[in-house]
């Protein structure tokens, strides 16, 4: 643990705060999908920039952990770089960009393409933890709705989408039902990633710092995307493959090449993309 920040505790937070957050995490794991209020601290990074995820990561990270941080699927987006650096400075832990090597992955807006395994923990940064928030702005009301599992307004909303647009018009932050009990916001991941949450062998933790909520999906928990029998849930599809690795399985980002409609599609998961490039596997074979 060399070159860590002087004058601060391991992973920045003091041990009392970590204990308080771990308690909230344990409660969240015990009640999958339920939003546990916690005494979120003011962090040296801005609210809305991952303070919830950072606090969860800081509370559970150990000196032996290997940390990966992604934003939009990529390890080298500026905020991912900044958060990874924060933990290198405050905890001195090893970091990686390889999904398989990581024991702890903090993410914003994506789930890695490479399947997670038992023992790994995925920490999501959550801006608005309340899946019903856009239907009912009041916390006092939405907490009651969850308590009574009174989810009528959500089903009406999805139905109205179908009536107006012929489909459920939600592309990201697509609501899920966890363990058959709580409707949960998967955080603003594309709905493409929703099926990965279902019965995932890894522990999934969600931290919302500004809104002061933690929730969890324990390993192998049922996570269903809301739908109707005659309008089953479906994910985004692209008519092309990644321009760099040729994958037809991954979520693609659209990159604007010029101002004449030129577009290029590449994997949003940079680690996945790099490990699937044909040139790389040829290189490795040659070595």
């Amino acid at each position, binding site marked *: 643990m060399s070159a860590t920040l002087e004058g601060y505790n391991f992973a920045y937070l003091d041990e009392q705060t970590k204990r308080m957050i771990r308690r909230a995490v344990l409660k969240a794991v015990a009640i999958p999908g339920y939003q546990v209020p916690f005494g979120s601290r003011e962090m040296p990074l*801005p609210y809305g920039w991952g303070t919830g995820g950072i606090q969860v990561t800081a509370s559970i990270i150990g000196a032996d952990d290997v940390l990966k941080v992604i934003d*939009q699927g990529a390890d080298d987006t500026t905020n991912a770089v900044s958060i990874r650096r924060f933990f290198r400075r405050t905890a001195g832990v090893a970091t990686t960009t390889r999904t398989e090597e990581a024991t702890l992955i903090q993410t914003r807006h994506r789930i890695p393409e490479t399947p997670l395994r038992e023992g790994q923990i995925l920490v999501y940064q959550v801006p608005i933890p309340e899946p019903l928030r856009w239907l009912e702005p009041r916390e006092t009301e939405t907490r009651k709705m969850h308590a009574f599992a009174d989810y009528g307004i959500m089903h009406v909303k999805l139905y109205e989408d179908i009536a107006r647009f012929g489909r459920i018009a939600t*592309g990201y932050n697509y609501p899920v039902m966890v363990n058959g009990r709580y409707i949960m916001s998967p955080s603003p991941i594309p*709905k493409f990633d929703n099926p990965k949450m279902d019965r995932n062998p890894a522990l999934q933790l969600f931290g919302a710092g500004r809104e002061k909520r933690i929730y969890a999906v324990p390993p192998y928990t049922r996570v269903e995307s809301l739908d109707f029998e005659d309008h089953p849930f479906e994910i985004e599809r692209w008519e092309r493959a990644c321009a760099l690795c040729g994958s037809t399985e991954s979520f693609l980002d659209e990159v604007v090449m010029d101002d004449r409609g030129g577009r290029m599609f590449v994997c949003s998961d940079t680690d996945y993309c790099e490990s699937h490039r044909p040139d790389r596997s040829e290189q490795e074979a040659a070595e």
Partner: protein
Amino acid sequence: MYVAIKGGETAIDNAHALLAEKRRGNPAVPELSLTQISEQMALAVDRVMTEGSVYDRELAALAIKQARGDLVEAIFLLRAYRTTLPRLATSEPLDTAAMAVQRRISATFKDLPGGQVLGPTFDYTHRLLDFTLAANGQDVPTPEPADEPLSADLPRVAELLNQEGLIETAEDGEDGPVGDLTREPLTFPAGRDLRLQALARGDEGYLLALGYSTQRGYGNSHPFAGEIRMGEVTVEIVPEELGFPVEIGTVTVTECEMINQFKGSKTQPPQFTRGYGLAFGEAERKAMSMALVDRALRCRELGEEATVPAQDEEFVLSHADSVEAQGFVQHLKLPHYVDFQSELVLVRALRAEAEARAEQEKGSEEKE
């Protein structure tokens, strides 16, 4: 050909180096010292201490310097520092009646025991730019000392009204332990202790606008500035091993008690009610705005119907904190291209369906 952002780490380092250079400005101009900021930008320091929730002029001055004068950013810096500090003790309630007053005015009585004391105020200055200030070294007038010292007895205006029973008294039980929203998450409905804490930390501009709205008809609170006082008060704590209060220092605060009309309810006769505001340093606008909003938020307890934004506790308190608000507004700068891609896919699909439908309708019209 790969155009997606790479090399984020170097870019961040370079951006921060540029920021440091910009912060310093022209190196030929002497650098500001923290003492200069705290002495000559005193009200900026007061605001940063109030909303940053730390009474420390030097740290606040440092935050202002580091933030290039951006007070909201300075408040954020101070808060992020505050969060790491241990909580050693909770002070006894401040006795503002025993304040060493620099300013004390009441708009409800022409004169009152202890008198009206204007103190250092912008009020009644004509807002004419003073070009002599632009030149260095102008003469600073020395204020004439008063003929007699201020009375040690400066009763609070609310207490004077209380003798006649014309104003509500503080409810029983308000002396109990107070909550701390920086340790426990705020839940609704919030107690008045937490509400006042949230307002004291709240953004001045936001509270000013909300308070203003209650005066303009979005609320019906008929406020009077019962009393505004500013000066030093002593802070006391009771160390566990001693069991009695000891003085640990003094802080300068501005306190405002608004007096509001109340028509009475089934259980209470008509009387005046109070709204309370308190801020570190000289922060009169903040304290007054806070008092207006506090009174508006007391609607539930006073049996008034909540009909306007300033009375909506969840709305007011959830959006008052500038550190939360500025973070979430500015997080829109972060990449959202995955979400946006999902939206693109969706909107293209919806448009394709809409166009197909339009074609179909056109086709069937042509057949007819």
